[in-house]
């Protein structure tokens, strides 16, 4: 250990003498505040940038109900898949197969539901698939995702492949099955009771909260509880923080990783099914390249690629940043072809800023703590 670590001098502060942080602070646990401020800053910036020349703030085009609704909707499936990816990355792993798994899971569900492809026994005379099949088809989609994830985990823990390789293989395999199964044709004519899931809104006043967003929030809460309140969640952090120490503490690292990759597959599947339901079609090219969006959301959200650190809330904010960025740059008039370059630049800037603040306050203390202190003193 270095001599410079904060030990006894901090010890004198005492455990009980500290100001108990308010709910807001506890929610953000310090580490997410930096990135949350980036999100707030972005929203303000885009609001100002989208005011047409010579007009007032009220004519901005960014913070409109329809636009907010669009942004929320558009990052919902990315976020759901990203919650699984968060867990994988906390174990110091990576899942490159998310996009393909989303497509395959979506196809599996759609294939059971479309009158063009569904097995004849599901068809009720009049060409339509009975409503009762829908939950089954969704479960099959989720199951396909979970199986892909389990296979990833199996290759990594039993065959000993590096996560990068195993999931790169799955990226190709799942996409290949999607192509082969669909013969390259999109599966269309999905029943209305299925597409409703992705298209339904919950009206709140004159604002329509998209159903996928509500589902995403529910999944976020479950994932957060899983990671922070259950034995498995504790183990995920232990394995990611130091696999050797975790193993020597009697934790089965194999089972932990297997579980995490399976969950990541399951949530990828959920994102895929939701996406399919929203689009009303399962295209074999669906969700191509989504793995990069998903990983970007996780990393922007402060989860360390080195493992052992990260949070669902951070990923949620990270996914929101990605969503705001895409829509905002669009509305601000960045030409579509240039969009990816602008996105990449801003992601790098955002992470650089966050890292810089963390270093400013010494390693692992973070901008957040500084901000938390400021909030506290401001209130006192």
């Amino acid at each position, binding site marked *: 250990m270095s001599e410079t*670590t904060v*030990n006894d001098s901090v010890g004198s502060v005492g455990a009980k003498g500290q100001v108990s942080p308010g709910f807001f602070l506890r929610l953000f646990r310090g580490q997410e505040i930096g990135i949350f401020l980036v999100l707030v800053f972005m929203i303000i910036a885009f609001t100002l940038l989208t005011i047409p020349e010579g007009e007032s703030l009220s004519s901005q085009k960014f913070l409109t109900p329809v636009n907010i609704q669009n942004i929320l909707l558009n990052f919902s499936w990315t976020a759901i898949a990203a919650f699984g990816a968060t867990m994988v990355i906390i174990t110091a792993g990576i899942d490159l197969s998310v996009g393909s798994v989303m497509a395959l899971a979506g196809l599996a569900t759609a294939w059971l539901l479309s009158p063009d492809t569904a097995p004849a026994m599901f068809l009720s005379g009049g060409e339509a698939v009975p409503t009762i099949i829908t939950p089954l088809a969704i479960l099959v989609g989720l199951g396909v995702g979970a199986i892909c994830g389990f296979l990833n985990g199996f290759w990594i823990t039993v065959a000993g492949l590096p996560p990068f390789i195993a999931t790169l293989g799955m990226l190709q395999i799942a996409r290949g099955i999607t192509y082969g199964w669909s013969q390259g044709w999109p599966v269309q004519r999905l029943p209305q009771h299925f597409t409703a899931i992705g298209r339904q809104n919950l009206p709140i006043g004159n604002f329509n909260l998209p159903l996928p967003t509500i589902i995403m929030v529910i999944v976020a809460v479950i994932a957060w509880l899983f990671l922070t309140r259950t034995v498995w969640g*504790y183990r995920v952090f232990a394995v990611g*923080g130091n696999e050797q*120490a975790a193993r020597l503490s009697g*934790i089965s690292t194999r089972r932990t990783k297997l579980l995490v990759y399976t969950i990541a597959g399951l949530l990828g599947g959920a994102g895929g099914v939701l996406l399919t339901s929203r689009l009303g079609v399962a295209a074999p090219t669906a969700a191509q390249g989504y793995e990069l969006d998903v990983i970007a959301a996780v990393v922007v959200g402060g989860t360390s690629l080195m493992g052992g*650190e990260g949070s669902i809330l951070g990923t949620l904010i990270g996914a929101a940043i990605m969503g705001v960025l895409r829509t905002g740059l669009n509305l601000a008039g960045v030409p579509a072809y240039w969009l990816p370059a602008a996105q990449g630049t801003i992601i790098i800037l955002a992470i650089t800023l966050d890292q810089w603040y963390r270093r400013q306050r010494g390693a692992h203390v973070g901008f957040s703590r500084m901000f938390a202190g400021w909030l506290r003193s401001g209130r006192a």
Partner: protein
Amino acid sequence: MAVQPILRVEGVSKTFPGVQALDNVNFAINPGEVVALVGENGAGKSTLMKILSGAYRRDSGTIYLDGKPVELGDPYGAQQMGISTIYQEFNLTPTQTVAANVFISREPLARGILGRLGFVDRARMEAEAQTLLDMVGTAVSPDAVIRSLSVAERQLVEIAKALAVDARIIIMDEPTSALGDEEVHKLFEIVRALKAQGRSVIFITHRLEEIFEIADRIVVLRDGQYVGELKIAEATIDKIISLMVGREIDEIYHKEAAQIGEVILEVKNLAATGVIKDVSFDLRRGEILGIAGLVGAGRTETARILFGADPKASGEIWVEGRLAHIRTPEDALRAGIGLVPEDRGQQGLVLQLSVLNNLVMPTLSRFAKRGWVDRSGITSTAQDYVDKLTIRTPNLEQKTMFLSGGNQQKVVVAKWLLSNPKILILDEPTRGIDVGAKAEIHALMSELAKQGMGIIMISSEMPEILAMSDRIVVMHERRVTAILDRKEATQELIMAFATGQATEGAMQ
């Protein structure tokens, strides 16, 4: 007596967020002098060393080299000025060869155009590396890959690397903590040779016994301040310790007689190919069983196999008279065995997790109902153990990376105590921790033995082995060469068995 100090620092201070790491420290070293820098963890030794090696920038104060004030800039600058540092954590690239590491950033270039294009003269590099390796007296080949070397061998490579820059001042940060007695002797010979060449050595160590063998002068730091120095002739261990801790410590090796009961662990003919051969011993309730031996004798390997961390080829492990099938650490945990591994940072703790999360790692499921962790339950139990073991941490949420070595070690021990083990294996339990914490760990071991736990203690420190053990298992080249009783054990006898000069037959 007007020798000009080769290096002198005056009024150096350094602050880190929340910590005054160095406070107005003065220090000087003459050519050909060996100075031991001692102090507890957090005293500022490493900080001072890092300032001298250019790794940290001082906040204030002056550094004089040959009487002239200098700016070291960065580690490269310090090396250029003749200050070379051997860090406690190795700075070697594991996948490269020994030669590449010795000449890292100073690779000899090929002749002519190729050299200008950046091609390395590998033959020359290996030949020069060989010379340096001969100098430190190791048989390691220059084209061996670092990853394949033992910790002791890596240490020697580090030293060869420091010699490669032709340094006038060599700083060694706990170079012996990873070495066994044999290697330590070799290292001291090297230090003496360096001294004879007129080079100066700053030697940081926690093993106070060593100082008398090697140092000319002892400088003591405490809480970032210079508290005094002793000429070797006038120093005693007690004097050094009272300067270090600022108070008297009654006893570093606190050993209490415990009621030694029935056999709780029986190891029969344990073997693993190329790792250990035919290891047998038993352990009784209330007993502290020391395992002595040189580095590489198979002590850690035995512990890891017992604990299920590595596979065994043959042999049996009996716990409380029942054959235990231990294939994973989980099995060991269930059988009531705990392991405090030799490397806290790599194997004992998840450094970026909190004290709380580390404490409950082995016992999580006991604190959970249907998978949900009982957070108030773990918090109160963890607080109990933090209090009982006097683990100094601001709170349970503190990341363990911010604790001192001694407190980290207590967290690892406490983690196992939570699981109520019958058998606790401690591998180098006091390596690299300060005197105060060391005394506390020893007292704790005695206390646990008194409560009826069986304790296996692997140690490379002879005084610790002799003072704490009820019986001593001595290993040499992967085998048990002797099991000695506390009464008959002496340093010489243990060394004789540990080096293979005596065999069990000769003794009985």
